[in-house]
């Protein structure tokens, strides 16, 4: 009897399809699309693999990736680990350092077909997911930081659309010209990018960075970095061309409603633009401060959690999710596909002037600095910059303290 039961259960285990869990964060409304994409994967696997998409709530949109990774780490610690997770560059170092991600090299060697045309993935964008020779995922999407301009407000100020080599002086002039009172209400020229990724974009343009190049020390107290923070602070309190930012400010909303003429963002606002039928927008590089131009980027992939019980199937899912079908279906409007072939197809549909810079920038993009311990580093960054932008602390002192605290955190990883 027992033997029979054993055989039956083994038999059932063999015949039953494998179920994988895919974790995806809330916030970019792609959940339905992910479910569609995994259905295609299930079809490809002839229904031997079922995929369950779980949505992880991001409780704090102002600290998006930080709070998402907190949740993931909590889930893993709580014994509730998913098999495959959406991870952006901000988290992969932490995952690798904590030994949470599964190296996929061997699986790729045994089953290269799963990653159809590996060379199609833009190499610079894939690089962050290959740490110490180990492949942790295949990039799906990426984003950068450029300047979005409300073209209606530009026209009203009588200004021409800026060229790619516009300088900081030009930018300041534009900001001033577009700060005015409209119908008794104040509108501003620029919304300060008071978030890690956005600020990093500006710092890179000036040859600086939030961290040192080896990501072991905080570097906000270099003269080049302080210049940018000081610029932002002065735009609020001296030129008065920028509104005071706070935790709940939504720059995209401000641009669409004509409250602010320029914002610093990647391609992600286009989802909202399209949803709100907002078409008076164009994009341009951040003003050229140091040559050659550097544009910040962040890419995302779908690493496999080491604790998974089905590594082979998880690898296949991870690879499928970076494939052309997944990219074409999932990344049509609000981020940038990482496959060169798909970029060529998708980018021309961007409803904004000068969309070409999105594709171009892949060649000289530099990864945003996302060390292990990113949530804590980003939190220190937020705290000190918010103190500066609310005129509580002076730039020099704040950036010095911030760098010291960051260095301490990095040392403790």
């Amino acid at each position, binding site marked *: 009897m027992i033997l029979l039961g054993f055989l039956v259960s083994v038999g059932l285990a063999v015949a039953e399809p494998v179920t994988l869990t895919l974790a995806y964060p809330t916030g970019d409304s792609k959940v339905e699309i992910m479910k569609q994409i995994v259905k295609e994967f299930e079809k490809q696997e002839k229904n031997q693999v079922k995929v369950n998409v779980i949505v992880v709530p991001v409780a*704090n949109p*102002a*600290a998006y990736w*930080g*709070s998402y990774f*907190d949740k993931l*780490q*909590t889930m*893993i*610690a709580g014994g509730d680990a998913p098999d495959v997770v959406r991870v952006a560059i901000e988290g992969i170092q932490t995952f690798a350092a*904590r030994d949470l991600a599964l190296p996929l090299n061997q699986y790729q060697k045994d089953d290269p077909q799963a990653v159809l045309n590996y060379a199609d993935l833009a190499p610079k964008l894939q690089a962050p997911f290959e740490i110490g020779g180990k492949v942790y995922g295949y990039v799906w999407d990426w984003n950068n930081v450029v300047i979005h301009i409300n073209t209606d407000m530009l026209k009203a100020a009588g200004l021409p659309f800026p060229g790619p080599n516009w300088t900081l002086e030009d930018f300041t002039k534009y900001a001033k010209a577009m700060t005015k009172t409209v119908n008794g209400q*104040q509108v*501003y020229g620029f919304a300060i990018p008071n978030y890690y990724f956005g600020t990093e974009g500006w710092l890179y343009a000036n040859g600086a960075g939030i961290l040192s190049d080896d990501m072991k020390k905080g570097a906000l107290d270099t003269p080049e970095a302080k210049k940018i923070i000081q610029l932002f602070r002065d735009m609020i309190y001296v030129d008065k061309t920028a*509104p*005071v*930012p*706070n*935790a*709940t*400010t939504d720059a995209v909303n*401000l641009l669409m409603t004509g*409250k602010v003429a320029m914002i610093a963002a990647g391609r992600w606002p286009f989802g909202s633009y399209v949803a709100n039928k907002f078409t008076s927008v164009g994009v341009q590089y951040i003003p050229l401060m140091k040559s050659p131009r550097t544009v910040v980027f962040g890419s995302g992939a779908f690493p496999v959690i080491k604790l998974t019980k089905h590594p082979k199937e998880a690898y296949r899912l991870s690879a499928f999710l970076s494939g052309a079908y997944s990219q074409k279906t999932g990344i049509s409007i609000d981020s940038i596909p990482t496959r060169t072939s798909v970029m060529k197809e998708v980018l021309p549909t961007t409803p904004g002037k000068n969309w070409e810079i999105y594709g171009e920038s892949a060649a000289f993009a530099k990864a945003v600095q996302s060390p292990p311990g990113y*949530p*804590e580093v980003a*939190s220190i960054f*937020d*705290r*000190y910059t*918010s*103190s500066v*932008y*609310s*005129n*509580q*602390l002076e730039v020099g002192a704040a950036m010095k303290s911030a760098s010291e605290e960051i260095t301490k955190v990095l040392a403790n990883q």
Partner: protein
Amino acid sequence: MNKKFSDAIAGYLFILPVLLLFIVLTLGPLVGTLLLSFSKFSLLSSSRWVGLSNFFNLFTDARMGVIYGNTLFFVFILVPLHVIVGLVLAVSVEGLTKGSAKYLFRTTFFFPVLATTASVAIAWGMMFDTSFGLINWFIGLIGAKAIPWLNSPVWVYVAVAIFSLWKFIGNSFIYFLVGLQSIPVELYEAAMLDGASPRQRFFRITLPMLSPTMFFVVVNLIIGAAQIFDEPYFLTAGGPGDSSRTVGLYIYETAFQYHNYSYGSAVALSLFLVILLVTLLQFKLQKKWVFYGN
């Protein structure tokens, strides 16, 4: 069966569900926090005993002073405000309105208590926006300059206070209202016959008769204000910088964002001790000002 014995069994049986849950989910964790604060704990690897080093960190933590300062500030500002405003509203509604008007006012002041805090806090965050919020628009109408509600380390307290008073005044209001209604009318009639003015009636009758209610309200308000979390979390995220970061927020941040469970426990323990001390102090002092009996 011996009555005393069967009573003991019955007694324990009736409290068993509550007692078990209390031991496992409250007392146990309290001890757990105590133990955690003396160790360095990790969910994913092994833990070790570190004695007093977490507490040493607590006292040398540069942010701790500001954070406790904020929390105590909230306690000393919000508690009196809630008591005074709640009392004024209760006396006004009780004395000035009747019937359906009374019902309407009661609803208006009490309903925010029921409203989902997260929802209304999100809405208030929008209303407080410096450049585009509702409140600054009205301020602009009367010609004053826009106030940086959520961006200035000073105004942030005012913003949290305003929100707190709007959202939670219903609690003290309703207790005072009921307390007022239970004061025997005869006391007032007798006083009026003796020629007492409204002011005298208020201070000699109303306040003393309300003092038990007030004690209850104050104790609860202090405990609530000391662990304040929802208001700063939604409105300010603790900012700008650390100016509205409370101990409650800091515990959450330390334990659940940085996964430093041990240090978080040490901070939590310190908060517990502070609340315990203050509450015990109040119970001792109540003899001085709370009036029981007739």
